């Protein structure tokens, strides 16, 4: 168990390192930030001076090691645009993104698992087909389009919910619903197939023969035995949620990490964009590490054999 965690931790660090490197290369390969910052009217001398101030005139590898060294000290650099530490900017935005993704994930789980279970229990009936169609729709609809439709229907036409920005608990509803659609559909589909497989197992039939009620078979024996594949995609969902949040936050003007990233990229604030990527990857790696540990809790077979 301890060994597993250590291995996962090392793998996580390697992932983090790789992602950080890619972020650095992309940020430094996309034009001249100094020129972009100063605008078209700037003189070449002024650009060169700013490049020097930002340290951009140094060799790339020096900048890279400087960047990595900063990361190791917990220094994510200073924003070019806001002239504030990146970490501070990110920390201001994280609660909003956390709220949005948490609500979205909760919706995805609370709707997706029962939906998938229902479809599996009613396999090959119209309920199953309707559920599968809904899940397929959820998986294929583009999130920006869905977001705009939600705004049009529930904010503009019906006027029930706010269309955007973070203002009170109701304002999270529409963006969270839009963000939850893809993971909800994936969770529903996976729960359905995993549950259908489990319900076909002999111990389910054996449970019936011993007089177990239908509910207890489905909830106690079925769901527990089909939860591992569902938990597996949870880790991937976090990735999907974080990248989906960029789009959703933009559509709903939600003041989270996603809008910060968009603003940073639009404003050529490459140090800030880099920092957002680093934090995003960090969260992703940590969440997946937690999920690996959770496996062992849910599946005693893993716990015992690795103990």
């Amino acid at each position, binding site marked *: 168990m301890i060994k597993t965690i250590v291995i996962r931790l090392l793998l996580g660090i390697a992932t983090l390192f790789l992602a950080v490197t890619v972020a650095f290369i992309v940020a430094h390969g996309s034009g001249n930030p100094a020129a972009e910052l100063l605008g078209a009217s700037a003189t070449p001398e002024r650009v060169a001076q700013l490049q020097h101030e930002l340290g951009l005139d140094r060799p790339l590898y020096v900048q890279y090691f400087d960047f990595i060294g900063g990361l190791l000290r917990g220094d994510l650099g200073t924003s070019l645009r806001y002239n504030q530490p990146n970490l501070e900017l990110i920390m201001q935005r994280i609660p909003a993104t956390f709220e949005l993704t948490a609500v979205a994930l909760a919706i995805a789980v609370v709707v997706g698992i029962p939906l998938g279970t229902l479809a599996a229990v009613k396999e090959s009936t119209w309920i199953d087909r309707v559920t599968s169609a809904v899940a397929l729709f959820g998986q294929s609809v583009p999130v920006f389009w869905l977001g705009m439709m939600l705004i049009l229907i529930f904010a503009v036409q019906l006027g029930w919910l706010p269309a955007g920005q973070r203002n009170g608990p109701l304002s999270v509803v529409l963006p969270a619903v839009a963000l939850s659609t893809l993971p909800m559909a994936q969770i529903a589909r996976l729960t359905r197939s995993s549950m259908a497989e489990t319900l076909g197992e002999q111990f389910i039939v054996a449970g019936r*023969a011993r007089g177990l009620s239908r509910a207890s078979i489905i909830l*106690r024996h079925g769901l527990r*035995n089909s939860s591992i594949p569902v938990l597996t995609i949870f880790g991937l969902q976090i990735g999907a949620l974080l990248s989906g949040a960029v789009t959703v936050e933009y559509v709903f003007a939600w003041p989270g990490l996603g809008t910060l990233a968009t603003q940073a990229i639009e404003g050529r604030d490459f140090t800030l964009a880099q920092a957002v990527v680093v934090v995003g990857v960090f969260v992703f790696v940590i969440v997946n590490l937690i999920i690996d540990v959770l496996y062992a809790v849910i599946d005693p077979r893993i716990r015992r054999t690795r103990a």
Partner: protein
Amino acid sequence: MSETVLAIDELTVVYRRGHAPAVDGVSLQVREHGMVGVVGESGSGKTSIAMVAAGLWPATSGTVMSGDLRITPRMRRNERATVQMVFQDPQGSLDPRQTIGSGLRELRRLHGSRTSWISDADLLDRVGLDPVLLDRLPHQLSGGQAQRVSIGRALLLRPRLLIADEPTSALDVSVQAQILRLLDEIRREEGLGILFISHDLAIVRAICEEVHVMRAGKVVESGTAEQVMDNPTHEYTASLLAAIPGRERREQDAIGRRETTAP
């Protein structure tokens, strides 16, 4: 005369309308302390009989009774307890995430005082297992141990009828013999009858006093094990017997052993 614990009368099972019935007008009985075999190739309808007799599948027509109780999928919980089943895949019939002990606790919660006649340790001992296995998960047991757990779990509910659907075909030959011995012992000592489903004529002959040979949903031959095996009147039974590889040699060996070990 001992009580009839299973009376199947003119049972027909049709899975899809318009298709050939899986079971076609089968009648048979099992008495208390009796062990009745149903043999046939896969697809002959023997597992369908097991499922209906265990109340896991509805009969299309015909009746299935255990004493005064009509066996249907709608049986109440306490009625269901009287008819228990042991399945082919020993590990597969145990929830992989439930220890043996917690599986027994679940049954005790479900069936209350019906299960209070024996402790977990005594129950495991009854089926030849060490009580330390109570803390184990199914994958930590051997196939034979898992099958003993299944048999014990069935016994806990004090059934009148035990249906054993190919209970040994997933096991090694040496373990097969132990499980058969256990079933035979239970049949004699507990007040229950066993319906034994198998494709293996040699096993059925060794353990059952009465045999029904099935083909394409119908019973083509019935009688005592000796009658059916030694003088098959139906050509299908004869062909099944002939299909057992090395049967004559094995029997000769067995006879030879018996002679040499005799005093």
